[in-house]
């Protein structure tokens, strides 16, 4: 479903010169699977995900989503993807329903099909009470739900989560984790970045450890533990990254 081959992204920075944010990275992710990008801040996770979501262009290498090339058919690729980041905002002057409807429409849905779809999602996420409330009046947990609803309103086959739990309280973070699990059960292809070991351990079918733009290791959590010869995943991570 997602196939990334020899992907590199170089930024030109005035102070630091050329920065290899992503350095020759390859991986694939299939439907019904969760692929995790695990790494510290500045490792290149967000850049990789932005290239998949077509908001950034790769310097070299190729990315295909459902057989579509991100550079040649960016619009069609975006239509396949639900994109959620940890610090996404909402239009504060619009109601929850209006926000969800807007993104449904931008994804090519008509008003007739959006109505029932919102009812359905609102039931799952328990957000019927505040559909008509302006986003500025919603709590952060409620806003998170609206964000989730906006991401999946068009039922995309691919989900991209960029540190979705960052800055959330325990309960809100938990509901996000449950939501990712739910997407997996629906057979979606999920790519997910985090710097939290527990989340990766719990959710991911396959993990890539990324640091300074490079993949240091790639495989199931158990396989990575074995490679490192550690019981705890965190210990394994530190060993693999090699910064002890």
């Amino acid at each position, binding site marked *: 479903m997602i196939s990334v081959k020899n992907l590199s992204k170089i930024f030109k920075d005035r102070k630091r010169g050329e920065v290899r944010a992503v350095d020759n990275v390859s991986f694939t992710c299939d439907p019904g699977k969760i692929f995790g990008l695990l790494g510290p801040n500045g490792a290149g996770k967000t850049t990789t995900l*932005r290239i998949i*979501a077509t908001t950034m262009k790769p310097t070299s290498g190729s990315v295909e989503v459902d057989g579509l090339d991100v550079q040649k058919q960016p619009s069609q690729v*975006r239509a396949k993807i639900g994109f959620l980041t940890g610090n*996404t905002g909402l*239009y504060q*002057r619009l109601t929850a329903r*209006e926000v969800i409807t807007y993104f449904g429409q*931008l*994804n090519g849905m008509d008003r007739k099909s959006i109505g029932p779809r919102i009812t359905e999602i609102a039931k799952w996420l328990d957000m019927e009470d505040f559909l008509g409330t302006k986003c500025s009046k919603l709590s952060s947990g409620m806003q998170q739900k609206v964000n989730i609803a906006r991401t999946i309103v068009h039922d995309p086959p691919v989900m991209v989560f960029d540190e979705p739990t960052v800055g959330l309280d325990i309960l809100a973070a938990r509901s996000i984790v449950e939501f990712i699990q739910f997407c997996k059960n629906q057979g979606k292809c999920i790519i997910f970045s985090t710097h939290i070991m527990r989340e990766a351990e719990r959710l991911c079918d396959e993990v890539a450890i990324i640091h300074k733009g490079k993949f240091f290791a790639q495989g199931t959590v158990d396989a990575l533990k074995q490679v490192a010869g550690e019981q705890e995943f965190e210990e394994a991570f530190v060993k693999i990254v090699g910064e002890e």
Partner: protein
Amino acid sequence: MNPRTIWIVFRKEVLDIIRDRRAVAFMIIMPLVLIPALMYLISTFALSSEKGIAERESTVAVVGAEDAPGLLAYLRNEERQRFNPPGESELDIFVIEDQSGVNAFIEVLDNLPASAEAGEIRSLIDSKQLDAVLVVPPDFQSQLESHDEGLNLRIDFLSTSDRSEKAYQRLRRSLSAYRERVVESRLTAASLNAKIIEPFETAGQDMATGQERAGEIFGRILPYMIILMTFNGAMFPAINMAAGEKEQKTLETLLASPASRIELVTGKFVVIMLTGVISSVLSLVGMYYGLSMGEIGARLRQVMTLSIDTSTIVMAVLLVVPLAFVFAGVLLTISVFARSYREAQGYMGPLTILIILPAFASFLPGVELNYTLSMVPVVNVSLVLKKVLAGQGFEVMHYYALTFVSTLVIAGIAIWLCARMFKNENAIFKV
């Protein structure tokens, strides 16, 4: 480019704006309430202070009064004369002049000694005890009677003080009326008809209609106002629609939707253009009411017709639309380039000056439309609007068309550039 997507973006942005109290206040309340109220207050104040000066008596002292008894008697209204101030146009609406007599508003004191120094006179005027001083040379009366040449009357006044300036004007007028009387009496003494020194008189007849006079005056001011208000009205929503989205952290999500950049940009463009056009039209309505209220309105109606026909309005609005698109392009590009709302606002000051200067073309005398100027952005709209508002739009149809088309082309380029800026990851993800 899918028109449906553009429509979706358009509708959302309209909804966002009409729920934004600040934007609504800026677009509707300012032009419809603040502008007319301000214009009314300013014009009323100007009229009343002008009136205050006109109705106030000027206090004037004479140095060497004993040497000019005849002149003094004349100035003291012992001999009043009907007199109309010459050379004042009807259009000079702020001038209210006494018509009762030249000297009616001059109170003459003659208690200054002949030895009065300039410094002494100055301090008397500064301390408001006097408005002006007339300095009569010694033996003025006798020299006048013996037809001496080179006689000189000096008026000491302060050009920087309204009341002193007024006293100076009044004195000059009175003195020239007195001079005419002297000439008249000399001619009579020589048994000549007084008319001999005025073989003919001239009379100008203004053939301009009230409509044309209004066009002439408003044709200078309005293009500038229209362009500025269009820009002002477009500014706020444009900042909101890109820098605002960055700050709200909705931009990345919006860009991750399948809508193409050009569709997003076009949807936003149309809304920005509309807010610009609406706010300039509303400002004009506001200014119209501000000017037609009260005494100032009554005075304006005496000399001009405050009405505009439909074809003028249509031609003006049709020209403002592509200009508003150009503004939308510049503003939205800057807005998406800026990191934050605040940064975007920071760019607006210098940009406003860049717009004001060419918009000023309509004010400049002697700047006439030609093919080259019809291609210069903003300047062309300013000059063509001037003609259109003066009711001469159909006479410059070729320039109108050229201005319209060239502005439209620039608007197209602006949309394209802006869409490119929305693809520029350095601008979008700038931190």
